[in-house]
């Protein structure tokens, strides 16, 4: 294998490792909220340092590859998109920390049903599938992740309205509900980040931006 291919493989494996930490944080966040468990919330915060370390390391790897290898075509697209995927993963870690910080503030539960848990698991699934699409070069999977965002947005909207209703019905729950609104907003943002990762995967594989598709056909001079 060429040295450059080895370096690209190392970058790819680094991103997979960083994504692995993100998935671990997502799982712990879901459990910390549901149980609730402050210990698991603390673990989420602890893992965030590893995400930050990965971000610095992988950013540098990308810059080195750009500077030393003059990449072109699919190599260039993969490195350029990696530079965008890495901060998306790092932000996912930050959002998990934001949720974990509120674990002690949202109990006892306000909402009946499992919509809140479903928001977490659907979001986690989007992140997992976006990373799988990156790892396995699977454009169909990346497209599916982008479509899933609508479902998460709808669930977020429903939960938001339910929480507003709860606050109107019982002013005593306003503080908990306010924290929960921030929790669901963080989940919704994580789903956006998974969508962004999937869009980068499509750029790597198809060579055209999958962002802002409503602008297609318009030229920007």
């Amino acid at each position, binding site marked *: 294998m*060429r040295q450059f291919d080895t370096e690209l493989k190392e970058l790819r494996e680094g991103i997979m490792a960083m994504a692995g930490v993100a998935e671990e944080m997502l799982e712990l966040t879901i459990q910390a909220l549901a149980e609730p468990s402050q210990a698991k919330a603390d673990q989420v915060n602890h893992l965030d340092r590893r995400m930050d370390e990965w971000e610095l390391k992988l950013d540098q790897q990308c810059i080195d590859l750009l500077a030393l290898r*003059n*990449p*072109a*075509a699919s*190599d*260039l*697209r993969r490195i350029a998109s990696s530079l965008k995927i890495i901060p998306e993963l790092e932000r996912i870690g930050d959002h998990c920390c934001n949720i974990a910080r509120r674990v002690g503030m949202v109990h006892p539960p306000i909402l009946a049903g499992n919509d809140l848990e479903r928001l977490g698991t659907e979001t986690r699934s989007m992140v997992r599938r976006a990373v799988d699409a990156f790892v396995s070069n699977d454009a169909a999977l990346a497209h599916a992740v982008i479509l899933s965002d609508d479902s998460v947005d709808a669930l977020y909207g429903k939960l938001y309205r339910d929480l507003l209703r709860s606050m109107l019905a019982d002013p005593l729950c306003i503080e908990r509900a306010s924290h929960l609104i921030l929790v669901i907003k963080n989940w919704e943002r994580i789903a956006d980040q998974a969508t962004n990762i999937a869009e980068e995967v499509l750029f790597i594989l198809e*060579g*055209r931006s999958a962002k802002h598709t409503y602008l297609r056909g318009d030229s920007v001079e």
Partner: protein
Amino acid sequence: MLTPTLPETKPIKLSVRDMAFSYGPKKILDGLSLDIHAERVTAIIGPSGCGKSTFLKCFNRIHEVAADVNVGGDIQIDGVDIYRGGIDVVDLRRRVGMVFQKPNPFPKSIYENVAFGPRLFGVKDRATLDGIVEDALRKAALWDEVKDRLKESASGMSGGQQQRLCIARALAVNPEVLLMDEPCSALDPIATSKIEDLIGELKESLTIVIVTHNMQQAARVSDYTAFFWLGKLVEMDLTERIFTTPRVQMTEDYITGRFG
């Protein structure tokens, strides 16, 4: 064969259709068709022996110094066939200048190198020649470096200066097309950078076709890039497309260094 799809505002300067080229029984180029637009830089890339330099030489028929050469198909300049259109070959070579891999100044003074072409075409008046020499040296970004030593031998110049002198020599006869065959391969990075800047300035008024083995150079200086392999055109497109999203896997493999 894949050719660019974007609209182009500059007219076609050189048009090649179904071109073939052979030395005796050895086929060098086959079935080549492409258009080269005026006031654009077109880079030809491809592995050694793919016919890039041969292709370049066909535009001013400089290959005709070799025996047993056969050229088929059409090559047109401004719509006139350069092989069958009754074009005077000396005039063709004035219109289509060439710069080679290794700087090859004549063993004469700097001034005489640049004045050589105009003299050949009958310019005798000293003041006119002085003007042409200064103009060509200025266009080649060399005037300020040599204006006080025009009578000195060109062989005393640095490699980069000699190459710019060769460009000035080509420019002195007011060409429409400049063919450059790996013009920087013998130069250091600073001299290379000067030639590349010069290419950017010259394309304002010239059609430039450059053969280069340096992929980054093709990316830096050209508007279009054509990838040749085994005497055939594999893909031609806007340079930015070739280097970000080539359409043919073979092009991708070549520019990412995975070829062969």
